[in-house]
Every structure is written in structure tokens, then in C-alpha cells.
């Protein structure tokens, strides 16, 4: 799905095309006009600057969808159809109350993606450690503890909870197996908030989370930019060219899940 300001839709669609899945880039206006949301098995909120990210990143798109197609979206969520949010997409899912979604869709954002620390837009490759025990349908095929390499590019990616609740909410993320990716170093040690391994100062190095059902998943990094080997920053150094980038695993995970569901 896209709106004015979405700009990572083409490469995201390309990832699905490459894996032999039919994906459409649909403008929100079109979905609303024809009420077509439920024709799809899965929904992706790609990266970009929806509506210029005015107010707060993702805020306008989130409210817009809830207002214009809240009903269909609720059905979509209740039927556990998978939803993926990348970068701006994660910001939307959080603003819309779909993530972390401790008690299902929340009427207000339970977390926030605050401005980076250190401040400013930051485009770099980072390492992610897979933390999920199998709940997240997008990563269930990825072994726990595996380190993935994917780029980030954002200025508002610092995942935080309300200070007074953060301890408790973090525990709940673990209890529900909602933690999916944490920023780490090349060797897999957690970034522990240290820049640049943790590129934005995220609480507990959180890079991606899913809802308690594991069907809604959002992450700040861009798997669609780590799909091919030639997208990697140092491929010119490697004697043996890798088959693909780590980002591919996430799209494959989604497709595996959809096949199971059929």
C-alpha cells in the first residue's frame, strides 16, 4: 500500500516478484474507493515519508487508514492476515496501535519511534540479531541468534516506551515472544545502545517487533535493500559472492507462512 510520500514501494514489490509472488502497489485512494483491502492475503506498509511525516512520522497515514478503512483493517487483523511494516511502515503500525498491540489493536500508540540519538538522518548498514522464538511468522524459519546484515535510513527510528512503563512492557515483549530483531555488533554482541551499532539509540537495541499473534511485524531496517548480493556495501571485497542478501529471508518467511495458510 502507498500514499503520497511513500517511496520504497517499487523495490519492495520487486522482492515479492523475485520470489514468484504476485504483489500489487495500490494507492490508498484506490483501496478506499473500491474497498478492496480484503482481496489481499498480506499487506505491506513500505518505507518513505508518508504525507511528509508531518506531525509525527507515520501519524497521518495511521489515522487516515483507521478513519477511511478501519473496519476492513480490523477484519484483516482479526483474521490474522500478515502485515509487514518497513521503516515508515513500522512508524505507521505503531501510530495506528497495531504494534506492539499487547491487547489487540490499541486506541492509542503504546510505543513511539522518536528522533534518533545521535540526532539526524542516518543511512548505514547495521547488524541485527534474531531474537524471536518462532512466534513471528515472518522470521520463523530464521534460527534464533542468527545475525543479519541490513541497512537503515531514517531520522526517527528510536524505539521507546513511556519511561515509567518500559521495564514492564519489555518483560511483556519477552513473555509474548514479540521481540524479533535487536541491533548488534558484527560478532553478535548486543549494541547496548552504543552508536553506530545501535544507529538511533533505540531502547534495549530494539530494531523490530511483532504483535502477540506474530502476524503483524514491523522493523526500521530495510530488508528490500538487502535482497541481492550486489546491494551489500562490501561485495567488491568478497571472493565468493553470496547468493543473496539477508533481507530476502524475511520475504521468504512471509511467503512460507502464506503457503501454509492456503
Amino acid at each position: 500500500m502507498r500514499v503520497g510520500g511513500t517511496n520504497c514501494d517499487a523495490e519492495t514489490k520487486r522482492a515479492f516478484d523475485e520470489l514468484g509472488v504476485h504483489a500489487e502497489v495500490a494507492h490508498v485512494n484506490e483501496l478506499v474507493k473500491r474497498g478492496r483491502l480484503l482481496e489481499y492475503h498480506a499487506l505491506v506498509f513500505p518505507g518513505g515519508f508518508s504525507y511528509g511525516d508531518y506531525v509525527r512520522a507515520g501519524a497521518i497515514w495511521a489515522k487516515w487508514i483507521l478513519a477511511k478503512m478501519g473496519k476492513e483493517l480490523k477484519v484483516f487483523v482479526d483474521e490474522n492476515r500478515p502485515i509487514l511494516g518497513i521503516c515508515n511502515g513500522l512508524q505507521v503500525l505503531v501510530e495506528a496501535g497495531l504494534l506492539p498491540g499487547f491487547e489487540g489493536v490499541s486506541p492509542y500508540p503504546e510505543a513511539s519511534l522518536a528522533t534518533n540519538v545521535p540526532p539526524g538522518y542516518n543511512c548505514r548498514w547495521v547488524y541485527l540479531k534474531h531474537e524471536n522464538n518462532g512466534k513471528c511468522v515472518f522470521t520463523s524459519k530464521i534460527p534464533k541468534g542468527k545475525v543479519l546484515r541490513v541497512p537503515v535510513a531514517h531520522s526517527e527510528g528510536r524505539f521507546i516506551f513511556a519511561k515509567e512503563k518500559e521495564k514492564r512492557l519489555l518483560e511483556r515483549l519477552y513473555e509474548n515472544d514479540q521481540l524479533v530483531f535487536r541491533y548488534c555488533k558484527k560478532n553478535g554482541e548486543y549494541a547496548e545502545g552504543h552508536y553506530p551499532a545501535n544507529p538511533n539509540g533505540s531502547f534495549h537495541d530494539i530494531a523490530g517487533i511483532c504483535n502477540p499473534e506474530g502476524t503483524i511485524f514491523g522493523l526500521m531496517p530495510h530488508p528490500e535493500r538487502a535482497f541481492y548480493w550486489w546491494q551489500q556495501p562490501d561485495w567488491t571485497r568478497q571472493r565468493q559472492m553470496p547468493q543473496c542478501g539477508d533481507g530476502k529471508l524475511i520475504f521468504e518467511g512471509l511467503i512460507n507462512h502464506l503457503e501454509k495458510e492456503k
Partner: protein
Amino acid sequence: MTTRLYIRREATFPVFEINVLEAADQQLLEISRELGVGLNLQEMKAVKEYFKKKGRNPTDVELQTIGQTWSEHCFHKTFKGKIKMGEKEIDSLFKTYIARVTEEINPKWCFSVFEDNAGIIRFDKGYGVAAKVETHNHPSAIEPFGGAATGVGGVIRDILGVWADPIACTDVLGFGPLNFDYSKLPPGVKHPKYIYMGVVAGIGSYGNNMGIPTVSGAIYFDESYIGNVVVYCGCVGLLPLKKFSKNAKPNDIILLAGGKTGRDGIHGVTFASAELTEKSEEVSRPAVQIANPIEEEKLKRAIITVRDRELASAITDLGGGGLSSAVGETAKKFGCGAVVELDKVPLKYPGLAPWEIYVSESQERMLLAVPPENLGKVLEIFENEDVEATAIGKYTQDKLLRIYYRGEKVAEMDISFLFEPPKTVRTAKYEPSNFEEPVFPEPKNLTDIVLQLLSSPNIASKESVIRSYDHEVKGNTTLKPLQGEFGGPNDAAVIKPLENSWKGIAISCGMNPNYGKIDTYWMAASAIDEAVRNNVAVGGRRIALLDNFTWGNPEKPERLGSLVKACEACYKFARAFRTPFISGKDSLYNESPLGPVTPTLLITALGIVPDIRLTVSMDVKEAGDAVYIVGRTFAELGGSEYYRLKGFVGKTVPKVHGVQAKRTFSAITKAVDLGLVKACHDLSEGGLAVAAAEMAFAGGYGLELDLRKVPCEALARNDFVLFSESNSRFLVEVSERDKKDFETLMKGTVCAEIGTVSEKQRLCIKGLDGEAVVDASLAELLASWKKTLSSGV
């Protein structure tokens, strides 16, 4: 204001008739000044003549339209006009030097050059690559963020203006020293740091928001940029050539699409064609437009859809001069006239006078020509993207421009008159600079000099800026601006634009303002050489060039003289390298209370990489490999970073030996294609020492080099061999087993093995007497390179 010169018409809106017929010369100039149309006496007289024949006075709409169309910014008087220089008389710098290169080489792969908003070359059978680089110096000096952002927005529209989909942006910037003493700033001049932060943020915000990767660029610091910031914004686009439709016909609808029109950007072009003064802030603030990248993002989507469904007959962007130049130029191009109803133009707020609507440079607007039968479909496409599009008139059989407001005619002029301004004749004088070659002893500790050079602003890492630009979006950047784990500086960026093809585009640039202080001829030659060798270093070939001039006031003979010299070099060396110019732009009148800008020529090179899998990066790859230097080193330190560090400019500016250089470039390309080159880095600012250091810390291996093996001419000092900035040179890493093949291949070029890649994490260089002259750990080299601009923006 002398009233009798301006007669207000009986109308429900403000429109004046300007009494030029009765005006004496002095008053003509007065009118030009008071209306801010920036026409000189010769031009005002031509206007008077024309309207005398018509037997009436011009309206303000007409006079403003003329002012815009004839401005330096829109018409490039200097490049198209006559120039007397000593005995020589040059009829159009542009034709004589720039366009001539392309005509003489006349490559089949040039699709459309100097025709449109952007130049287009063939990429493969079906696709073309469009490229344009814009200057946005004046606005950025007044309002850095807005000025730079709208510079990016403008050049992206130039690409859309040839039906191309923007796939990459470039930015080359020039600022005053960031540590410049506030108290020394003259009134009206903003501090370099403020301008730097604003410009960088402005460029980032526009490119990032539009989802176009900013992949290539450079930042230079020079005292002369304090009062004249230099902002070059470039954009590269991709288009299916068969969708390139430019054939507007009479009765086609004039469709204005995108943002609303307001008072922002009134007289932008006349402002850009004048010197900056203390008053610029208050006088010209309205000339700076306001950017809204999201509007342009949506506009882009709609335009690409219209293109793919082949619903429009022509397109052009609204930039300098707003509607006045867009409508006029389109009509001229297709030999039509045009009728425009200004009251149809959607406004940001009421109260604009007709002439303001017509010349406003409000951003994110494009002008399409649409056959009447397609109008419905086109409007629907724009509506689906939440973009406003309005029919504001149509093209006509007659060759007249007619403008109406609320049913009343406010302008009627012959298109031909609009595009035949009196030819400007300027005189140029060339004076060689009087710098002396400095005399000083060779410093004891050259390791320190290397470290200092690495942290000198022009060489130091620009990482804090580069990372604030999204250079990954679209997922097609295969060679990134920063290389490897430690972010070494790649010579060019490579984009892989098509899914089903390994073919790539290499984008690089060359700029040596410091040489321009000594000799603009060799500056231009060096800029071309640098742009081309950067491109060759990563595997680019079949290179096309873009030229962007930032110069002082051309009405001053010696400034113009140095411009002529630079153009001569452009012809000579682009011809020698067989690299045609496909597009360009000049920004003159870059003068401030602190004096003129250092003559600054940016050359942007666009190369083709047949297979991106053969792309070469600049970081050393493996211990034990051999390191070669290709190209001869001369005693050429004039304008070098080394002399700057020592507080000199010098005289011995680097020259270019066209034939030898061309041979070197072809040999490197062959070696790359045969996979013999593991790493390749061009030698530029800081010379051999800096290039070697960068390759080493980018790759994480040490280097052991020996200056005695470096092919030199008339060089007996270690510091000169280390830091000379002679052109057409590369450092190349070759694995042991490929040495023979590489050496055979390089026969006929100047090439020598000067050392090896080592496990030791140090850069060690033996001097001419065999003693170590440079010995530093990669860690300290990297640290000095990164510290200067690490603070970020």
C-alpha cells in the same frame, strides 16, 4: 516613482501600462530598475522599438515577461553572445567550444543534447539516461535550506521535463572555511557554518523525502565561497526512449500541474543574474522559493503514468521565470503561439497581480501539452495522486503569445520577438595570475604532513554529510559513496537501474577551484581529467560530460577572459578524451561584498559499466598483492593541498597531456574488463600519499611503497613526489599471479610497481634516499581523516 511612466488601466485588477514610448534613455533604465526586470539600456531600447511598431505601450505583464525571458539565467546572454578578446572575436562561447565538441565527436549514443531541460544518452536498446546539473548559488546564499532544497527540486523537475524517472541525485558544494572569524563577516553575509548546515540539510530533506538516492558529490572549502556559496545539484533519470514524446501541436491544451502559485520566487532569475549585495537579504528574500518534496513526489508518479500511457504531447518544468519561460519556450520549440488565461491558475492566496502569477517561480509545478481528447484521462491520473492539474490555455496556429486575465487581454507579443533579444557584445581580457612558486626546505617530518593533509577540510571524510543523505533508496546503488567497513571514499558511484540487466551507470565528478586561482585553462583541463579518471577507476567508459560554470561578473573583462580560457580547455580536452558534453549550466555574477567567487568549473561524468559485476572499488583487498602507480608524476604543486597547508598558492598548476592520458584511461579500462584490477584509486588532492592512505585504511591492510620507483620528471624532493597533484594518475592493486598480464597490458603507458599490500596495519613509504619518510598506523591515518567534519550537521 515617477507616475507618468506608469498608467494604471481601468480594470477590476491591478495592471499597468508602461510608458516606454515617451521615456528617455534615463527613464528607460529607471523603469527597468523600478520594476526589477533587470534589462539594460540596449534591451530597453529594443523593447521601445518593438512597441513603437505596435503603436502602443507594453503592459507590466509584457515587460516582466521580456525581463524574464531575456535574463542571463534564462537566455545565457554571455554564453550565446559575442565576445571580443584581443584580436579574437568569439560568436557564442557555447557554440564555439562546448557544443562543438559534441558535434565533432557526434556519437551515435547521444539521443538529445542541449535540446531540452536535460541531456539524454542511450543506455541500451530501449532505455535512455537523462542528466542535468543545476546551480543554485544565489538563493542558497540568502536562505541556505530553502535555496538548496529548491535546487534539488528544480533539477529533478528538469529530469521529469524530459519524461525521465529520476533515479539518482548528486551534490557538489562550496563553502567558506567553517571556522571563519564572525567579526570579519561583512554585513549581509551569513557565516559559512550556518550556510553549510542549512544547505546540507536542505539537499538531504528533498532527496530523502522524494526517495531518490544522493549517490555522488563533493564539498570544497575556499575563502572566496564565504560571500558566494556554491551549490550544484544534479539528477540522473531513466526513460524508455520510445515514450519520449515532444510534439505539441496547435490546439493542444496547456496543463499546469502540481503546487499552487504564490508570491514566492518572484524575480528569482533577475536576482540570480545580479551580484549579491548587503541589501540582497531584504530585496531578494521573496526570490527564494519554498520547497515541498512530497508534492513533487506525487507529481512525479502522475507524470510517469501519463508518460507510460502516452497521453501528453509535450512536457517542460516550471523553473526560472515560472510560467513566462515555460509557456514561451514550449511555443517557440514547436512553432506555435499560445493563449493563457491567468485567472485559471490556482493560487496559494488571492491578491496576486497578473504579472506576478505569470513570473512566479513557486515550486513543484510542471507544464504539459495535452491533446484535447486525452484531457479527461490525464486529469484523472493527477486526481488519483492527489495532485492538482488545471488547463490554463492552449497552443495556437499563429505565432503570438496572448495572455488574458478575467477576459481582458493583458499581453500580446510575437514569440519570435521574445526569443530574439539584442545580441550582447562583451569584451574580455586575459591576464595570467602573478603567483610565485614558493621556496621552502623539505619538512623533516612528512608523516605529520600526511596526517595534516588527511584532516584538511577538502580531503577529510565527508561521512557525516553523506550518511545524512539516503544513498540506498530504490535498492540499486551497487557501488556506494563510502566503501567498506571504514567508509573509504569511492571515486564514483555505480547504479544498476534495470532489473533484468547487469549494465550500470557510473557517476563521478571533477572540480579544482584552487587551480582556477592560478590558471582557469588548466583548471578546466584538470576538472575534465579528474571526472573522467574517477569514472574510469570504477570501470566506467563511453563517458558523457556535463559542464557547470560558477563565475564572477562577466561584464568585467578579466573575469570574462578567464571564462573564455576555461571554455577553450573544455573544447580541447573533451575532444581529446572523446567525451561529448550533453548538458550544462552557468551561474555568473557570483560576486559579493567580499569580492568575486574563485572561478569554479564542475565537470560531471556519466559512464557506462557494461557489467556491474566487474566494478572496482578503491579499498585494497589482500595482503601480498602488488601496488602499481599508473601515470607520470611532475613537479606540479601549484594550487595543491600541500601548498595550501604551507600557506602558498604557487604557480606550477597541474597540466593534462591529452594523448598520453587517453592511452592510460583505455589501458585501465582493458585491465578492469580482464579482471586484473583488484582495487583502483585516482590520485587527486594530496597526491600519492593521500590516495595510498585512503586505499589502505579503507581496506584494512597496510601498504609498503618506495618513492624511488615512482616515474617522475624533474622531482628530487620526497614531499613533492608524495604530494604533487599531477593529473591522469591511478594507484592499482594487482594480485601476484596477474602481474605479468597487467604489465603487458600497460605497455605504452607510464606504469611502475611501487610496493605491496602488507598484513602490517601501517602505511610505510621509503624516500628517494631509501630511508622511511612516512610511517603511520592505519588507525591514526583513519582518525585524522575522520575527525575534521565528524561533528555532523
